[in-house]
């Protein structure tokens, strides 16, 4: 690298407008961890296979390890840190992972939660097979998949039941 190249960015991170000067060689995962302290974004394979670095960009799940930070200008990013409410309480899907013992070593958990959050935000009902497909870009090397799917399914059921009572 002869001379370092930077790009000025502004984007929305977990609901807040932020800006940064980023080295164009950085991945979004690098920038979120190093510049913004978003350490829920885990770096596993760093080639877009394991899903540990999954974040939502404009509401959709992406592997932040293979997304250049330079591309995030003007977009909206959500990480697990953004799921916590103002008082610091964790969200329903996070609590469900605890209740269902869907966490073993925990390294894959934030990525799974973000993929699940995308699915839950659609407000639709999914079969277990459809949940599996929606989570198929995330790998749990402790192989705790059944409990992970249980956690997502239970949260989906709860949210849909709440929606029904609201009507």
């Amino acid at each position, binding site marked *: *690298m*002869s001379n370092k*190249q930077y*790009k000025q960015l502004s984007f929305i991170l977990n609901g807040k407008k932020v800006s940064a000067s980023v*080295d*164009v*060689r*950085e*991945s979004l995962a*690098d920038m979120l961890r190093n510049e913004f302290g978003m350490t829920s974004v885990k770096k596993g394979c*760093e*080639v*877009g*296979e394991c*899903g540990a670095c*999954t974040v939502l*960009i404009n509401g*959709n*799940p*992406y*592997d932040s390890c*293979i*997304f*250049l930070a*330079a*591309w995030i*200008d003007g977009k909206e990013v959500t990480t697990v840190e953004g799921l916590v409410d103002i008082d610091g309480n964790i969200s329903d899907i996070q609590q469900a992972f605890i209740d269902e013992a869907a966490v073993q070593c925990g390294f894959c958990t934030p990525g799974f939660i973000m*993929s699940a959050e*995308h699915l839950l935000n659609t407000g639709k009902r999914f079969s277990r097979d459809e949940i599996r*497909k*929606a989570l*198929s*870009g*995330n*790998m749990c090397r402790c192989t705790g998949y059944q409990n992970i799917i249980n956690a997502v399914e239970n949260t989906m059921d709860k949210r849909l039941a709440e929606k029904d009572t609201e009507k």
Partner: protein
Amino acid sequence: MYDINHFYEATSVEHAVQLRVENPEAHIISGGSDILIGIRAGDLAGCDLISIYMLDELRGVSFHDDGTIRIGALTSFTNLAEDPIIREHLAVLGEAADTVGGPQIRNIGTIGGNTCNGVTSADTASTLLAFDAVMELTGPKGIRLVPLTEFYLGAKKVDLRPDEIATAVLIRKDHYKGYHGVYFKYAMRDAMDIATSACSVNVKLSDDKKTIQDARISYGVAGPIPLRARSAEKIVKGKLVSADTVEEFAAGALEDVNPRTSWRATKEFRLHLQREMARRCFVESIRRAGGSV
């Protein structure tokens, strides 16, 4: 940190072409799910990149006045799978796009990248080939149209000139109207896997659903590039829909394929798959077209 030497960011198609003219050695990066992995692996370490990712004008599916469907080069696999025009007129292409990687990869991967990387296993490439798709390439002198059948020159080599970028994939109305198709991907896993081999068939039946008016079949991982099995197509053109026709089609397909043995599978297994996939895809395409075998 990626080992990128210089990063050029295009702000328009014209700018991208200008950057190509000025930096013929630089690689185009659209979604990056191949390029960034190549940099990480070392193959492309230290390269110059021209990013076209921010060019939203290259996203989306639309109709030309003559009924041609235009798919912007940066349209993601997710967008393809969910697009109403694709679902109505090119359903098989949406289904093929939905087999790529996992959800995250389908959000970042683009149809332009999937074709321009020249890889035989590309799920949308073999499907597009069975639609006689045309690549729209934009250079300093304007647009050049190249049929996908001629676009592939060899493994990882395509007819994209150093001063061009792919701006769209076009599918003519007479190439999709009345056709019904299927994509079959044979892989070890249901997600995050590359095809051991794959097959795409499109069939057009006569009005009474008894005769094959036209059939097109293409393969991924049946040779160094995605390829059409023209022998099979010729054999069944104008024939009656029957079990014998299906067998002739499957046998004919083997005359044009040339699979190799790799760590994923042997040549013999791939040949077996290719015959079986031709059979199943043909039968299912006929069924979707309203006929029955």
